[in-house]
């Protein structure tokens, strides 16, 4: 019996979910007992990466948002030269220092570290949000006066 054959037998046992497999061919004998059944072992966390049933692209007649089984979005490979400026607090986004005043920055503006990008008003306090990098504002992601959550992206800045 070759290793390949034994490997096949092991795969077979795993596939079929049986507890134990014993094979003898003439003088050859193989006995496979699957690990899950070998000991009354305490549990190991299930792998985080299996395709959850509710997340499968099934033709469900209900709306896609009706499921409580939200899967975390896949982390996308991020562009190292693009930085998202996120809100550090919950509050209201203001693009300029006062109503009617011009915005601190616009798409295309070149910004420096420490430069004010916007204001988040929280509990009547105006919190200035500064850029941490030098770069060019590629996108403004929130409308003036819009409420923002913690961690919500405000601007995309291309570092230079």
């Amino acid at each position, binding site marked *: 019996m070759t290793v390949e054959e034994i490997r096949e037998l092991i795969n077979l046992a795993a596939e079929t979910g049986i507890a134990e497999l014993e094979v003898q061919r003439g003088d050859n004998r193989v006995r496979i007992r699957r690990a899950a059944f070998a000991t009354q072992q305490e*549990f190991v*966390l*299930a792998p*985080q990466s299996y395709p*959850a*049933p*509710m*997340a499968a692209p099934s033709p469900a007649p209900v709306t896609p948002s009706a499921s*409580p*089984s*939200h*899967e*975390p979005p896949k982390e996308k490979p991020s562009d190292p030269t693009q930085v998202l400026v996120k809100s550090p*607090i*919950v*509050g*209201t986004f203001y693009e300029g220092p006062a109503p009617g005043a011009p915005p601190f920055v616009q798409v295309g503006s070149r910004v420096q570290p420490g430069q004010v990008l916007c204001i988040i008003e*929280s*509990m009547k306090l105006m919190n200035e949000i500064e850029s941490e990098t030098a770069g060019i504002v590629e996108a403004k992601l929130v409308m003036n006066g819009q*409420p*923002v*959550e*913690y*961690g*919500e992206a405000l601007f995309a800045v291309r570092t230079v």
Partner: protein
Amino acid sequence: MGRLCLPSVRFNKILIANRGEIAVRVICACKDLGIRTVAVYSEADRYSSHVRFADQAICIGPAKSARSYLDVASIISAAEITNVDAVHPGYGFLSENAGFAEVCETSGLKFIGPRPEVIRLMGIKERARAFMREMGVPVLPGSPGVLKSPEEALELAAEIGYPVILKASAGGGGRGMRIVNQPSELPSLLAQAQQEASAAFGSGDMYLEKFIGAPRHIEFQLLADEYGNVEILGERECSIQRRHQKLLEESPSPAVNDRQRAEISTALRKAIAASGYTNAGTVEFLMDETGKLYFIEVNARVQVEHPVSEFVTGIDIVKSQIRIAQGETLPEILPGPVTLRGHSIECRINAENPDTFVPSPGRITGFHLPGGIGVRVDTWAYTDCVIPPYYDSLVAKLVTYGSDRGEAIRRMQRALSMFIVEGIHTSIPMHQRIMADPDFQAGNFDTNFIKRFAK
């Protein structure tokens, strides 16, 4: 009955400053009242049911509670940007934080709970005890106020008789507590407890009380409106605890008789009305070996175990909290006089090893809820959800009802056997052992039950 014709407000939207099953519970109450809801959540709870079932949801910070569920500014900001009328604090987190209640008030948000000064009074335990003693509620013999010195503690302990217990004024959850069996131990244990209390609660103020070796933990549920009406919704038996963490509660208590219930309820109605307490609350007692009850503290919020009282009274406590906060009167809110019918038991299904009690966070890969007659489940979990390691381990509350205690136990056994949770450990097997225990079945137990039981 108070001033009946006072105009009550009608909330349009409520923010729920909590997570997990109690956030879902408050959402249910709001849906039942036709009030819209705002959930707040930390980054770790993005996929939690309370986010799914609220009308709106706002991320208020990272996983760490201090920067999310305990962050007053973030929560108030979330309330402001969503234009809510009121905030329900749930239990734990900011629910008994008088400062938070105050900030809500100054921000024009109705805090669904007692007024800040009442929360503060009830939070300072020796003041609460003094108040209850004055009002004729039986209180455990103990120090009249904060212990001023080890010498005063020794004097008081000699008067009361050993053993005594040292407790932190601002404490809870078993921290800052020490049992003292003889005078020689007292000074060093006091110092230890003070240190622990300072670290945990920011105050080293201590008091002492008579220590009962084998007490039962019994608590009375109350509702109080804003016009001086108070109703007592019977008691709950909460003696099945491990290190002061309740595991299982029931109502009524197998150890409280009708006469005692009526006496305590009468005393409490008077005391609570005099205290200016409003909204829902729980008055905790210890029962000594002779069956006498002693007041220990007030929990100025809804309790985890409120569903057992809801089952036996038929009163929706969380809905009542909201209606009280809207300015409605108890006679308007309650369908009739408060009566107890049948028996109810709650098992806390925690994500933990049932033998070692070690928390067991992780992904729930299989989840099948029991149902059928006499079964209620309050949960935020679902198939494929992840129990985060950052918060308490409560996955679900399994509550059963029966026409008597025996029926409630049988139904709990049935429901436990049909409750399937895969991927994590849960306390289900522990509850099955408790249900099968002859002492438990006979109603013979005290707060040491789990210790005896674990052997």
